């Protein structure tokens, strides 16, 4: 195993660790809002680290730029879906008289 492969392996393992932590948060946190925190943030970092590991393994700038795009699109999907789920959960649970934040 070369040095590059060793570093890439560390990034991949760290990425998997963040995914695992996000899943544990999904199971342990008490409600839908807290669970969304775990899924969006931990998985975002996990995906980023996996992309860095794969980019190092490929050693090609073009593959790295595609992985960067994949990460950015993944971020966009995660944050938009988290906002939509949170808004739906808030509107479902909030009584009509508490429609505003104040």
């Amino acid at each position, binding site marked *: 195993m070369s040095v590059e492969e060793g570093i890439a392996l560390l990034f991949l393992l760290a990425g998997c*660790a*963040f995914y695992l*932590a*996000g899943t*544990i*948060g999904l199971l*342990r*946190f*008490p*409600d839908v*809002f*807290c669970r*969304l*925190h*775990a899924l*969006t*943030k*931990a998985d*975002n*970092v*996990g995906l*980023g680290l996996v992309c860095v590991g794969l980019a190092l393994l490929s050693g090609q700038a*073009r593959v790295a*730029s*595609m992985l*960067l*795009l994949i990460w950015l699109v993944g*971020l*966009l999907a*995660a*944050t*938009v879906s*988290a*906002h939509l789920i*949170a*808004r739906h959960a*808030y*509107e479902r649970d909030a009584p009509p008289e508490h429609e*505003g*934040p*104040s």
Partner: protein
Amino acid sequence: MVTKNAHQLGTWPTAKSLAWCGQVFVALTLVWIALNGFEGLYAGVPAAFAAAALGTLYARGQPYPWHPLRWLVFAGFFLLESVKGGTDVAWRALHPALKIEPEFQPYDIELPPGLPTTLLTSLVSLLPGTLSVRLFEHEHVLNVHALTPSAIDSVRRLERMLGWVFGAPRPNP
């Protein structure tokens, strides 16, 4: 909807619509280059131009001046904050005592509506301890779900940064 589009078609091209079209064209061309390299640009450039022109006709946004260096600084800031956010929530999820004090907090947005507010609403969910829930009062108040009461400070930092990137007046500290 028809009236609005007809109005836009009738007033096109204006300086703002041309600026928006140019920015979308450059962004789409860069995406093409990231995906395909410099090969096939003879197809990518016309495709990017067609997409930018159609987008300008039917879904034009407010163009802002580009500050590439500021965007670079912002990318570094966002990268650091999102790593902090992921590490923070992973630590809280794994901690035996589950150290969270979740609460909803209203946040008064001082950024202009449109792209800056959309970016703020989207990126809040990737910052340490905050989740954007809903916009109120014509996009002036964002309801934020915070894992700890002090987490709202990261939204303020993000808003100041976005105001600087877009050249908007900086919110009060």
